[in-house]
């Protein structure tokens, strides 16, 4: 029972990080209908900036620099590439982000070489006992940070002007533009916010407690595991991203313990497949209707 409790807390902690990443997919998808295959490279880029600036800025400064730069990279990708091809449909833009992902990822992996630095210095590998179970600080901090960020996002989404503009654009792009909403600004901030969230996530991913490995190609593939999280929640649902993230985290933690570590990676995808067969647009996603 104790093991189960411990796994649940750790799974939720992991899930919180997946939720941050999945939320990034969802925000971009809602604003632009583009699926961002380059999300993993935003994660890597933020992490790499932490590594580079750590000596000069200290851990706090470097982490901030990493988060901001991941956001900026998202912004640059949107401004430089996506905004210039408005005639292209959302699916080909999704393919374009694959190109971005390949380039950024290969370059950062090349620069890292064989050094695989850990990032979460403030909380990494500091387990403590609580009522007979061992908890990892990384997972708890991740839960707390994600809760704060997701609540803040949700409030902004609901009440701020930005949130109203964003929701209007998600509802109907043309009508929103006619009502005077600057779609380019909404789109740009969506990418910026998604990048910032990716930058936060990497501080938890590249740790001993989360992945057992430092910043590497493996970090990128963990970011890919947020894909099933976003999909099984429903690509256009922010609540779905949070639920999906937690489900993925729990499934991974529990299956790694009770089945096998090798299996845990595919377990996530299996659960996603089952959900999709039952609900083709995810748990909370809007069903696509066809008009002839």
């Amino acid at each position, binding site marked *: 029972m104790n093991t189960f409790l411990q796994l649940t807390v750790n799974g939720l902690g992991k899930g919180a990080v997946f939720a941050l990443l999945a939320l990034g997919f969802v925000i971009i998808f809602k604003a632009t209908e583009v699926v961002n295959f380059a999300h993993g490279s935003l994660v890597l880029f933020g992490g790499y900036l932490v590594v580079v600036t750590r000596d000069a800025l200290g851990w706090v400064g470097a982490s901030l620099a990493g988060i901001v730069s991941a956001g900026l990279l998202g912004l640059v990708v949107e401004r430089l590439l996506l905004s210039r*091809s408005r005639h292209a449909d959302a699916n080909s833009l999704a393919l374009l982000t694959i190109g971005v992902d390949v380039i950024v990822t290969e370059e950062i992996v090349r620069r890292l070489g064989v050094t695989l630095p850990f990032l979460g210095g403030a909380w990494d590998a500091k387990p403590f006992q609580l009522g007979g179970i061992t908890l990892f600080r990384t997972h708890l901090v991740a839960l707390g940070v994600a809760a704060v960020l997701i609540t803040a996002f949700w409030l902004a989404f609901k009440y701020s002007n930005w949130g109203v503009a964003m929701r209007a654009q998600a509802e109907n792009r043309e009508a929103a533009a006619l009502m005077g909403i600057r779609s380019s600004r909404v789109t740009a901030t969506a990418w910026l916010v998604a990048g910032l969230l990716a930058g936060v996530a990497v501080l938890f991913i590249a740790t001993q407690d989360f992945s057992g490995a430092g910043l590497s190609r493996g970090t990128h593939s963990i970011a890919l595991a947020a894909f099933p999280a976003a999909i099984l929640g429903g690509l256009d649902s922010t609540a779905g991203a949070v639920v999906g993230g937690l489900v993925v985290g729990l499934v991974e933690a529990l299956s790694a313990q009770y089945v096998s570590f090798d299996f845990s990676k595919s377990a996530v995808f299996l659960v996603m497949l089952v959900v999709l067969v039952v609900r083709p647009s995810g748990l909370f996603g809007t069903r696509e209707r066809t008009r002839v």
Partner: protein
Amino acid sequence: MAKLVRGAAWLVLLVVLLALPLYLDAAWLKAGQYMMIGGVGAIGLTLVVGQAGQLSLAHAFFLLAGGTAYTVLSGPTGDDRVVGFGLDPGLSLLGAVVVSALLGLAFAPVAGRLRGIYLGVASLALVFLGLYFGQSAEELTGGTSTGRAPAPFSLFGFPFTNDGPQITLLGVPIQQAERTWYLFLLLTVLAFVIARGAVRGRVGRSWRAVRDNEAAAAVMGVSVLRAKAGAFAVSSAYGGLAGAMTVLWFDILKPDESEFGTYGINVSIAYLAMVIIGGLGSVPGALVGALIVNGLPQVLALYSADLGWFSGTGDGALTPILVSSFVYGAAIILVVLFEPGGLAAIGRRITQKRLRRQPGQPAEEP
């Protein structure tokens, strides 16, 4: 007239490809074979993604499935560490194609329900299942640490190695490299001709109808589920064939230890890159895409040996694989930004200018 010129061009290309083994040495032939593997796989992917409009990221899984099926079917029976059926290699190759097609069909109920990006990520699940399969089904795959050797290919008793009857053509001994070249060329040409036939025929029309509008296709009497399942099965069969060729090319079946490797996500993405660069849905385009994505690292590696490029090793070194990743990453971006039809559209524009298509003649597949 236009048709005649085009036919003549294909004929010249074929003659050149048939003659190349007499002039190139084994290393270049090996590089060429790798491009042909990519060509076969990319043709399959372009059918399902471009023609039928079903985004698939599962291609790496079907490569692994086909490679494993070939190795198991043709493997020796007496080995107690791994399973083998001791079938004739030619038959095993056919078996690998069939097994992959059946796996593709098995995924069809899922593929039929999903659309667009949901299907893309769902198909990514197969790659992860393949990774797990490679790690755990050691009796079939040989395991991640050692892998297992495939039976050398032979057709009707004629070996595609240095053994058997010695043949000399124009003073060039036809050995393993040359024989494998001809085998792969035959497979690529077959793959090409069948795909073109499918695209131009009834099947291709039903795929495109489903791609353009499922509801409209259903109204017109196209069975949407069957068209989707068919496209997925055909594409998987091509992937399986490419996988069997991959195993023969490496001369080993070695499943990946992580999700990056011979059968990982990166390979699925590389195949998608071939298809995008070539122009979604275009069969000749897929071949050109394969030439770039699979060919570039091979050619760069061969040239660099002569020119002393990429001499650095270890941390931060620029390797041929890295350089070609940059090139095809950039190529994807440029294609989407400036020519969504890919290289096929560019090629079509050039030939149209040259030949002035007669009015009324149906356009080629989009």
